[in-house]
């Protein structure tokens, strides 16, 4: 055993100012068990009174080694680990991983599955934004918004449970399509949700958008210029709130997003309030996509018929020997993917979620790399928080919208 050494300030010397060494400013630890850090984020703060001079994020408390684990599993079995990364965007994680596999092995996805995928990822986007809105408002002492947001989120989780059997981590999207078709009660449930939510979003807005307390806490707090946003690879609503119109659903459409009519909300202020406005508007736009997807949902199969990659449906196993063989082969040995690498990005609720997948000709991936938006968006927190009060730092942690499972992987 190597003797464990205490970490000393010398190692962080380049991150703090000279005044800290002289004892003029205070070094304060915040987190990882702090309710406003949205998980296990630890921050080392250098404070001058209540002003943040330096902020040093310390991540990794939720590191689970998903990338390493995925290398040890076949492509199909590794899919269940994708839900666990960004636990507020489980469907989106499944989607990007499946898109990467489908690109690597050139697998077709039937139209019905494509539409259901879009529908569910948009519902998931709304659910994720609802959690963000609720917790962000809670950080700024608006308790009731939190309760209302979680009430509506439960609707969406019920719909996801209806489809995949679980509220959050169902691995419903599989390579080549979906696990199974959506049930009969799916359509009326989503339609009811579409009827309810617009008025509910108006309610949230009535509580926050013109609330002087909320404005005071968010206006001109953590201003991010478009140049800095691009330099620091910030993506998603945070980038759009800085006035850069980049939405991968529009720019590089996947899963048939080019067939839907929706707007990409942007804002020019780049402050915490702008990010709030953009996310609220995104929820409305997602509702438009859900409505269109539901109206055009075509009939047909929900998974590819290519039995070299996609396991046969359960119902065939009792009657077809071929199906049993394919089932057995795919769930034990897996399918081989060619040598080569693909990088597939999608627009998650937090920004560009990308998967770099490299195959070596065998049934297990050589390398799976997750380019997660939370990881990169968190990187600008020191930049945003400089010169603000500690109380505003709480608002800033909320506004970059991080999920620690996504940061630490």
């Amino acid at each position, binding site marked *: 055993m190597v003797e464990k050494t205490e*970490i000393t300030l010398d190692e962080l010397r380049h991150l703090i100012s000279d005044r800290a060494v002289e004892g003029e400013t205070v070094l304060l630890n915040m987190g990882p068990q702090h309710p406003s850090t949205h998980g296990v984020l630890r921050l080392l703060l250098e404070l001058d009174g209540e002003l943040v001079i330096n902020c040093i994020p310390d991540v*990794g408390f939720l590191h689970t080694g998903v990338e390493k684990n995925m290398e*040890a599993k076949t492509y199909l079995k590794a899919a269940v680990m994708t839900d666990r990364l960004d636990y507020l965007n489980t469907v989106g994680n499944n989607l990007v991983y499946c898109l990467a596999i489908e690109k690597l092995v050139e697998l077709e996805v039937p139209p019905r599955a494509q539409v259901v995928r879009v529908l569910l990822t948009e519902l998931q986007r709304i659910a994720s934004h609802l959690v963000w809105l609720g917790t962000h408002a809670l950080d700024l002492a608006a308790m009731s918004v939190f309760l209302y947001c979680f009430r509506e989120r439960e609707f969406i989780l019920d719909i996801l449970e209806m489809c995949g059997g679980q509220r959050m981590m169902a691995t419903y999207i599989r390579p080549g399509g979906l696990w199974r078709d959506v049930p009969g009660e799916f359509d009326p449930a989503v339609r009811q949700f579409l009827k309810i939510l617009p008025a509910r979003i108006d309610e949230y807005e009535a509580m926050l958008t013109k609330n002087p307390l909320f404005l005071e806490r968010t206006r001109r707090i953590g201003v991010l210029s478009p140049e800095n946003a691009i330099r620091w690879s910030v993506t998603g609503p945070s980038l759009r709130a800085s006035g850069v119109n980049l939405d991968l659903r529009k720019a590089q459409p996947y899963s048939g997003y080019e067939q839907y009519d929706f707007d990409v909300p942007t804002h020019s202020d780049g402050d915490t309030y702008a990010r709030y406005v953009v996310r609220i508007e995104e929820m409305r736009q997602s509702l438009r996509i859900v409505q269109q997807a539901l109206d055009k949902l075509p009939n047909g199969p929900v998974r590819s018929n290519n039995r070299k990659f996609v396991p046969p449906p359960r119902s065939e196993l009792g009657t077809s020997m071929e199906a049993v063989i394919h089932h057995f082969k795919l769930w034990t040995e897996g399918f081989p993917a060619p040598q080569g*690498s*693909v990088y597939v990005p999608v627009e998650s609720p937090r920004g560009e979620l990308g998967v770099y997948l490299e195959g070596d000709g065998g049934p297990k991936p050589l390398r799976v790399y997750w380019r997660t938006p939370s990881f990169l968006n968190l990187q600008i927190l020191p930049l945003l928080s400089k010169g603000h009060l500690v109380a505003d730092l709480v608002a800033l942690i909320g506004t970059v919208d991080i999920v620690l499972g996504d940061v630490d992987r």
Partner: protein
Amino acid sequence: MDDHLNSAVSALTERFGAEASEFRGQVSLLVSAENIVAACQALRDEFHFEMLSGETAVDYWPQQEPRFHLVYQLHSLSRNLRVGLRVPLDGNAPSLPTIEGVYPAANWHEREIWDMFGIRFEGHSDLRRILMPYDWEGHPLRKDYPLGYEEVQFSFNYAEINQRKPYAKE
């Protein structure tokens, strides 16, 4: 291939001896470690690849030469294009220059690669471990690093396994 991307690829081939390849419609360029900063600079300033989308490494162990590939994903917002860069790296004390000066976002990416693969970045401003504890030994995403597992304890061997099981016990 897109015209703009084509001109970028031919410029890099000419200047830095990059080798272009295409797989599933995605273009990637093989660049040597000493040229990576200049290549990124050229791509950002002359060919509008403003954003670094991702940066990671791949380990080809037991192959030693080159054992690692660094993979950079660049994104051009104005031209709506993507290009990958690959840097082969020897397995013996791997190190290469940082691209932090060109893309500041590489800071955490490179810390993560140092943490996970043990690849050093010369000139990096803050090369500490990021995901693993600071006193961790080894670099987990290397292929010669064992995955680790939990031994299943049954009633007949419970005590035996319990003895060697790594608990947080005093």
